[in-house]
């Protein structure tokens, strides 16, 4: 997977200002990953990547690395 593209996508989804999302970010380090951020992520996963996960599955994710693993598992942002 092209991790850089995935992180750029997450930066846009969470509408993060002044910096980019990094692979080491977590819910605690990323203020925009709040309830609304989770909702935006849930809808974007489904709309843009056809990845459907439940609210509980999303709730169990606490790190950006886990989102990237999910994207990779579903063949999103495949490296050219």
């Amino acid at each position, binding site marked *: 997977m092209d991790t850089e593209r995935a992180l750029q996508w997450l930066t846009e989804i969470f*509408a993060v*200002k002044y910096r980019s999302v990094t692979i080491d970010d977590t819910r605690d380090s990323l203020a925009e990953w*709040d*309830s*609304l951020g*989770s*909702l*935006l992520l*849930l*809808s974007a996963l*489904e*709309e843009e990547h056809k990845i459907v996960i*439940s*609210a509980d599955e*999303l*709730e169990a994710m606490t790190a950006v690395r886990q989102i990237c693993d999910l994207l990779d598992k579903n063949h999103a942002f495949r490296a050219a």
Partner: protein
Amino acid sequence: MARAAITGMAVRGVVACVPEKQIRNESDYPWFDAAEIRKITAMAGIKSRRVAGPDVCTSDLCTAAGQALLERLGWDPTTIDALILVTQTPDYVMPSTSCVIQHRLGIPVTCAAFDVALGCSAYVYGMWLANSLIASGGCGRVLLLTGETPSKFVDPKDRTTALLFGDAGSATALEAAGDGDDTRAYYVMMTDGSGGGHLIVPGGMFRNRFPAEQSEFRLHMDGVQIFDFTRTRVPPLIEDLFALSATSPKDYTYFVFHQANQYLIKFIASKAGLDISRVPFSIGEFGNTGAASVPLTLALAGAPQGADDDYNVMLLGFGVGLSWGGVSLRIPRACVLDHFVYHQQQPTT
């Protein structure tokens, strides 16, 4: 299981109103930056909303809608046998707001009036109750009112809810059908109280009468759980209604959804095989108007062009409770569908 086919009720009119003050999310909202607002509004599909002034309550909007509807139909208020108000934002803890409205509409004391506390599923539940009252033979005419002023309990600084909700009121005239009316209506209603905490105003009533934190008086929403609930529960509801009524998508002129989220409605419509041109929206201009969203959307859609016959609609409500339900019914071609902007006359008590 709350599934029913009930006959004997005709829908004579639906009128909805919204307050005059309009808020445009992208230009009138000071709390969030432009990129953030664009992200939220694009996902929910909400460009603007109408917000009631401090002196305007649910009763004002619903009374105005009721008056307009009775005038349009030429119904004498003395002919109303029951008045049902479904709302989550009553004027008072007590008395019931329906009693206030009964008096203001000049409906006689022989009328039964009561409130039902439901929000997103309000219209379907109200319709089911009215239909049941009429089918029982106890009521000839029922006035169903649904309305809400959610702007009064939303925290303007809460990113999850601040840009979503608008205020509105509605009135629907229902009566015992004549011989010529095709009136079979099909209802499915469901409840899952385990999710009650996902959309809640925790303070202000008797569980937590005087909370120390002002935020307890505000709406708390777990958007992810509500989103998940909606996409999980609503498609099977539509399938249930098709099966119960022995119909298919092509039999319907409109599928009117509770206006919670435009993206989600389109997703569900696609999943259920519905023609999106038959799915009207009001959310873009008026936001999520809670209990009033289904009748407001139906009133805005209006009668189909060139309608020379009665037509089928499916009405779908889902949300706070968690409560959800749907009805498949036939609308007479002469049914009044109208909407207007409410202008405050004077403060009421």
